[in-house]
């Protein structure tokens, strides 16, 4: 028996030496340790051993079983390790292959600029008001101190629908609608589409404006300047300054044209600012007394300012778009670039 045990030991040592895979190991393990395996049958043979030798033989057999189990476990561990390593090696990928992109859409540049402007002015307490695009003569002109024979009517080429109706040429038309229905303090922002009979690289028969109106007690030209300084800093950059210069709009007096210092060159003069260091961005002024009176707002108690800017113009300046048409053509190569 002792010899037999010795023999089995040697057989196991030999068998595991040539083991190739964990499955192979499993077979060998079963051959020796399985229910009908070599060691188990030897255990059964213990009955035939002389009773006085049985305990020592039993001990030897148990030792063999334990030794072989440990042997198999150790090998199994080693094999699994090797196999995992192999698997990992095989799983190597070419990380330079392209990623699976989930294509996002894009906002129209006008939406981006509009929302940026609104968020700046909303923070200063402005509410949004949107008036109709098909307006009547009264709201678009007469109430804005631009009577029928006024030369300022020629400043804008108006699309007419009838004697009475027209496509609004300015979001200022909304000013009147607000003042008719709301008593001061008024702080509104009125973005929307406007229409003028004009068509070239920097003009489009349809474009968008953003109009701002403040009416309250004691509003001054300095307040307008302060608010526009804030706007310019938020939209064009912290170091950007504003400059007011005289202009004319029938519905404001005094009227100003507002330039911002060139955010491209910092005011030194470049192609964007045509060498002047300044870029014209909007028109503004103190609300004309006649306009206030027409809306039953007492101009001796209240004063106000209004400003209006072209959203496309700001978009073109900010993104460096050179032709306004691109904004309305819906070319996907253009649109895809504006990722909010």
């Amino acid at each position, binding site marked *: 028996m002792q010899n037999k045990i010795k023999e089995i030991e040697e057989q196991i040592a030999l068998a595991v030496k040539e083991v190739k895979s964990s499955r192979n190991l499993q077979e060998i393990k079963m051959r020796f340790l399985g229910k009908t395996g070599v060691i188990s049958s030897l255990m059964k043979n213990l009955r035939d051993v002389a009773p006085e030798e049985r305990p020592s033989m039993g001990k030897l057999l148990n030792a063999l079983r334990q030794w072989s189990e440990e042997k198999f476990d150790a090998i199994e561990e080693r094999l699994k390790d090797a196999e995992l390593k192999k698997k990992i090696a095989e799983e190597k990928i070419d990380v330079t292959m392209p990623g699976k992109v989930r294509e*996002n859409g894009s906002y129209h540049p006008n939406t981006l600029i509009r929302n940026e402007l609104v968020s700046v002015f909303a923070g200063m307490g*402005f509410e949004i008001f949107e008036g109709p695009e098909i307006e009547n003569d009264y709201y678009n002109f007469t109430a804005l101190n631009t009577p029928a024979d006024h030369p300022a009517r020629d400043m804008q080429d108006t699309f007419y629908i009838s004697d009475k109706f027209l496509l609004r040429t300015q979001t200022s038309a909304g000013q009147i609608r607000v003042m008719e229905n709301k008593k001061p303090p008024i702080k509104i922002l009125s973005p929307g589409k406007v229409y003028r009979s004009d068509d070239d690289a920097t003009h489009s*028969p*349809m474009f968008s404006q953003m109009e701002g109106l403040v009416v309250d007690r004691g509003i001054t030209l300095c307040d307008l300047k302060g*608010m526009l300084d804030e706007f310019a800093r938020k939209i064009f950059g912290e170091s950007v300054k504003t400059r007011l210069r005289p202009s004319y709009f029938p519905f404001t007096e005094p009227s100003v044209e507002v330039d911002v210092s060139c955010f491209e060159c910092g005011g030194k003069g470049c192609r964007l600012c045509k060498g002047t260091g300044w870029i014209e961005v909007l028109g503004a002024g103190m609300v004309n007394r006649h306009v206030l009176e027409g809306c039953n707002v007492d101009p001796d108690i209240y004063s106000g300012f209004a400003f209006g800017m072209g959203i496309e113009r700001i978009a073109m300046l900010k993104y460096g778009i050179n032709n306004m048409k691109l904004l309305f053509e*819906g070319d996907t190569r253009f649109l895809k670039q504006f990722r909010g």
Partner: protein
Amino acid sequence: MKAPLSWLKDYVDIDVSAQELQEKLFSCGFEVEELIYLGKDISGVVVGEVKECEPVDGTHLSVCKVDCGDKGVFQICCGADNVKKGIKVPCALVGATVYATAKDHVTVEGVTTIKKGKLRGIESEGMLCSGAELGVNGDMFDGADYVGLVILPDDCKNGEDVKPVLGLDDYIFDISVTANRPDCQSILGIAREVAAVLGKKVKEPDYSYSVVGGKCDSIKITDEAPELCPRYIGHCVTNIKIGVSPLWLRKRLALCGLRSINNVVDITNFILLELGQPMHAFDLKTLSGKEIVIRKAKDGEKIKTLDGNEFDLKQDNLVICDREKPCALAGIMGGANSEITDDTSEIVFEAAKFARDSVRKTARALGQHSDSSSLFEKGVNEYTVEHAMKRALNLIRKLNCGTVTDVHIDVITENSRLCEKKMTVSVSKINKLLGIDVPAAKMTEILKRLNFVVTENGDNLELFVPRYREDIDGYPDIAEEIIRFYGYDNIKGTFLASGTITNGGFNEAQKAENNLKTALVSFGLHEISTYSFYSEKDFDMLHLPADSSERKAVKILNPISEDLSVMRTTLAPSMINTIVRNQRRGNMEGRLFEIAKIYLADELPLKNFPEERNMLAFGTWGKYDFFDLKGITEGVAQHFNLKFEYVAAEKPFLHPGVTAEIICENENIGYLGLLSPTVSRELALERAAYVAEIDYEKLLKLAKPFRYVPIPKFAEITRDLALTCDRNITCAQLEKEIYASCKYVSDVKLFDVYIGEQVGSGKKSMAFTITFTPKDEPIEERIDGFMNKILKNLEARLDVFRR
């Protein structure tokens, strides 16, 4: 408005450079759009004296020795026929730049640099120049129109720059004048601003004249349209000697781009430029009955204007007539019948104020515009009307071309506004508007510079407004006058120091729109913005029947073109055209959306404000199919917490088999579908395109607010179910039945469709994943029962079996 620096200097002692003046004008509200240096293209041209001049045999050339003073003596070959010894001429030295002229020696073809060269083998070190080569014509310098050399005065110094000699050392200010300042549409008007900004006095033009008498019958002037012609002055001049105007006058006209005609016409044009008052001169002997009648035209009357154009007149055209016929289109152009000719001997000068609107309407209606009509449209004032007449008479004397008679008829109608404007403004009110403290004395000083008469009286300034300033109306106008000279730099930003705090932000509707846009962008769609107007042809593109409601579109009376002439009633054409444009440019796939208004009139022509309704449109093409687009509309439904139903439908421009109406809460809210192959072919589309349009405002109205639902205690259970059914049974029918069979079904999702041999002809197989959501108790053990019930219902109602 073009103002030559040399002309401005007639009225103001300008002691700053042109560039400085440009900046000063800018600061007070007059933007110089272009500052043009007359001699900008000319350099290196000096006065040269021809010392020797020998003809070259067999050529038209002469070889000259030209003395250019300190520049040296040069041998120059010259082909001009008026070259001769002893004359002084402009001499372009080697390296000089002058205009290159065409073979006609007149047409300028660019700028050229003079090089040393050889003509017929003779060395030439420069070029003697003609007027055209230096950009000078006969109105700017006597003799400069000659195709040969310009002869310079003998007192020029050899070697000196010719630009000052020829008047090229001058600047033209092209100034943008705002609509409230018609008084500055004139050299004098600009000069007044220049004087104010430089703190100088204006030297007014000489308005003096004296009546010499002369034999002249009186004339009669009748103003029958005082509302269109509030003021009309006529003055007769006799012994007219038509001739050429003096150089100083011709030169001023030329600098402003006007051609000299003859002395009388030049006087009127000079005053138009100088004072901004259009004038006219009638040949008195052509006026029938020696009568001038200002009246509206009679329908059917005709007039031929000075430029040879003929017009049929209508009642709303204002005309200046004699006893019988129209002799001028009021404020626009004179008639050929009363034109000044070489043998005109007696004239009537006209200076008048015509209503802006009347001139504008007539000029537009007839398509006849002139410098005169442009000024009347902007507005003239009666102060200038009076002064223009005086100035014209003054110039008659100055040019010595006629005798000023005492026949002066001034028609001052009830519409005339003559009175001097007096007003009182409060210093503190002005400062309150500006937000700064401008001292009263400073205000007075500024206003005086602007020719206001000012008396300080406590807080008040009592003012006489200059009569040409019709724009001044209230204290804000005075505030503007003050700040534009006090300087906008003094306006320091404050932040609504006295304002009330208000709460701002987007309103609910705008927030909803922004949220939807965010969702759509996350679906991979690109937002577009297209014109609100398109063509009636776009309805034809959609094959819409003649009576379709979409064709009831609001029309623009004066569109830019037919392509942009009707306000849209559906977004579909805009979306389809955008897809066409993209495909033509090689963009072979895309997913777009637009949220924009359509305009719906209750009746046409428009009586009431039309409804402006926001719509939501989608367009996809390229690799996307119907279900990609439907996936998007489903996403929209989810976004608004709604369920859409889809019913097969037909639209004239969509594929009849691949189109659905979108129903929500029993309301039709839109459609989606494949662009019909017919339309696709007509548009030459390479890739199939899908469009959808949803009534955004209905969506907003139906939208269900989001509410939190507590999550169930027990896990959801899913089961797959493959069914065989008749091919006509729709997915929606099956889904509906499954939902109806068991209250725990929370989701039914189709994951496979099979049509083929294995299920037999006329049949199909559809496989669904059904999700059961437990409520308060576990349902695991009841699932089999649910499934059986679902199957039984399907079997009984739709003849559908488990596959």
